[in-house]
């Protein structure tokens, strides 16, 4: 176990290193000049060169990347070119909003997805089952920006149940979480359904039924806990999908998270911020995968850590 963990940690670090290298290279190739963004419209060429030197942007790629890496290892993500603040500070100030959205999204996913999957499994083969499965397909096929705008229109503009955008109370959280969660809910519904059907076929469920236990008791006390575990184990892997969605969802709802931070930074080639957000997202994804893999054997003893 410990050897496994050690190997996985080293692997994860190498992956993050690779992510940083590729992102840094892409941003280096960007046909835009960050120094021009800093120096402003009235700057003389001399001023521009001066700033370029100070930021080390006149150095060859390898030197620039090496310097970034050395600072990164000491926990320093650098300073934003445009905002001039520490990138760490900027990310830390916006991370709570993104994490809150993530928690909200996961709750929506699980509540909707598991509920739909459970009902579909119990009513297997009926029209309800079919309808729910179509709904789950709609969930995974719906573009998040359309879902977001649609929810906004119906529940915020027309019905005024929720605010149109912004951040602060639980009411603000509902629509963005739902938007993020609908995609995952579709997947969870399908997984939950098949997992539940598997469990219901198992001997112990049959035995319980033969003993004359109430249907409800069998479902909730015996089948559900067993069916739900493998599904829950997928949450770690979900983080990757989540990180892909925040740029869009945060921009539709004006949510002050790291997705918006990254999007604004890309518009103005604020390289330290783009690097920072990419690395933080990649870290979350790697961590989620790692956790999912570590938890897997506890849930399903047939899986061994390799």
């Amino acid at each position, binding site marked *: 176990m410990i050897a496994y963990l050690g190997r996985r940690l080293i692997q994860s670090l190498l992956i993050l290193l690779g992510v940083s290298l590729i992102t840094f290279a892409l941003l280096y190739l*960007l*046909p*835009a*000049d*960050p120094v*021009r*963004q*800093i*120096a*402003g*419209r*009235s*700057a*003389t*060429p*001399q*001023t*521009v060169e*001066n*700033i370029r030197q*100070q930021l080390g942007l006149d150095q060859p790629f390898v030197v620039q990347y090496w310097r970034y890496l050395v600072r990164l290892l000491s926990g320093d993500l650098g*300073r*934003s070119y*445009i*905002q*001039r*603040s*520490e990138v760490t*500070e*900027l990310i830390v*100030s*916006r991370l709570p*909003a993104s994490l809150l959205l993530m928690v909200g999204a996961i709750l929506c996913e699980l509540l909707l997805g598991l509920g739909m999957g459970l009902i579909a499994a119990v009513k297997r083969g009926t029209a309800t089952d079919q309808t729910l499965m179509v709904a789950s397909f709609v969930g995974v096929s719906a573009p998040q920006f359309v879902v977001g705008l649609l929810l906004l229109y119906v529940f915020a503009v027309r019905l005024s149940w929720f*605010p*149109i*955008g*912004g*951040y602060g109370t639980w009411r603000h959280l509902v629509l963005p979480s739902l938007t993020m969660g609908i995609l995952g809910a579709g997947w969870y519904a399908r997984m939950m359904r098949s997992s539940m059907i598997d469990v219901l076929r198992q001997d112990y469920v049959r035995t319980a039924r033969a003993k004359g236990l109430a249907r409800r008791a069998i479902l909730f006390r015996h089948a559900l806990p067993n069916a739900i575990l493998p599904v829950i184990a997928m949450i770690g892997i979900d983080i990757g999908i989540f990180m892909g969605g925040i740029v869009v969802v945060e921009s539709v709802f*004006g949510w*002050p998270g790291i997705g*918006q*931070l990254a999007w*604004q930074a*890309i*518009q*103005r*080639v604020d390289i330290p911020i783009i690097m920072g957000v990419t690395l933080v997202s990649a870290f979350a994804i790697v961590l989620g995968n790692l956790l999912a893999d570590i938890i897997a054997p506890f849930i399903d003893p047939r899986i061994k850590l390799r």
Partner: protein
Amino acid sequence: MKKFLASTVAASALALMLGMTSARAEDTVDPNAKQGGAITLTYKDDVATLDPAIGYDWQNWSMIKSLFDGLMDYEPGTTNLKPDLAESYEIAPDGKTFTFKLRHGVKFHNGREMTADDVKYSLDRVTNPKTQSPGAGFFGSIKGYDDVAAGKAESLSGVTVVDPYTVKFELTRPDATFLHVMAINFSHVVPKEEVEKYGADFGKHPVGTGAFKLAEWTLGQRIVFERNADYWHKGLPHLDKITFEIGQEPIVALLRLQKGEIDVPGDGIPPAKFQEVMADPEQKARVVEGGQLHTGYVTMNTTMAPFDNVKVRQAVNMAINKARIIQIINGRAVPANQPLPPSMPGYDKEYKGYPYDVAKAKALLAEAGHPDGFDTQLFAMNTDPNPRIAQAIQQDLAAIGIKASIQSLAQANVIAAGGDKAGAPMIWSGGMAWIADFPDPSNFYGPILGCAGAVPGGWNWSWYCNKDLDAKAAEADSVVDPAKAGERDKMWSAIYDKVMEDAPWAPVFNEQRFTMKSARMGGADNLYVDPVHIPINYDNVYVKDVQ
């Protein structure tokens, strides 16, 4: 030290002898203004910094003006210069020496008195390349600027502290815009000890002499200003507190205004709601319309064929249907026919510009040897409404045979393409367009139409370089005497008329500003569309519902 003093005294004596003295205008404080109260504003985009040497965004421009002061400012709601931290100033007749007498007893928010040393320190700081100020270039006429910009000196040799309340500027050339430069945010006075204490984070902990001081800043969410009780300008500011809520979509902001939760949506009325608001008399009454020192234009790269032919450029000017483009943005602009916006001194009211005339445009193209048009590219920034405007221009150009493919890119990419001599044949300037830094006609020339900007990485995207006009511009800017301002404006009008003859740009429109406010907000309308304190003049507005 003594010798130093003696020489400067001699110099100022000379200046006094020959000098033109401007007394300060009487300060106007609205007699109906009420004291106290708190207001709430919203902005969509984050406030990056409140450091006057660095902040250069829509949302922080006026905030900085309320936290800090410069030697000069403008009468509220106008473009008329007046002394601010300076009590008076003198300009030597050669236009190369400016001496400012500072106001006594002006205190920074930390309680220390502001003196001439602070003025000098602030200018040394903003021009120092280590500060990386986007405004450093404005100070290019001060003696010693080149050495500081090159990192060879730490201090501007042209700025001298004569005594604690007198500071003298020596310039390398007569500069009629210098008083404006002394009013721009980048020259605002900062206290050395606070800058050194916070280092690069001074922008998050601003300490100035301004009407308000920073009370709270929650990154990405809100900023709170509170009244500076020690403000040197008696009777100002009127408000006790201003809360800025950040990250609010304009559409949300407007709804909150309609519900009475906020007082001013800082980003204005969102396009989709504009007609709804204007159709309702009650809401319309709370909308203030004003001009803006802004021009939206299409640049044509005069070094790239076929735009190296003036007839082609003139044809483009005649092909663009400005009325239609203004319709697309819900009529929130006026058609432009010259680089300067109408509210700018030097705007030529007589100039008629190029008419919208498709037949004539086609004929010009044919004369230029392109009877069937040609293929080219039109760059635009990729945020709404710019791709839409670019498509409207594309359709207009197609009508005379010019097939322009659109490159809709991130702001930084368009700027990079414009600064590359072979990068972009045409650029629609929207989203990156020129909003004047100060209300002076010269501000629309140097970096965007003069030879100085036609360099790799520069902002003269049409690569238009007319040495003759550069000389005329220098001549106009050497007319320093305020009494000859009218004459100078005429010289500038002539320069822009000549620019339009060469047609490196097709001016399209001048944006109008529409600010909406809550019913409780008081103060003259022009404070809400202040041409300098953009978007509104926080120091002078007030609320009506306090005792």
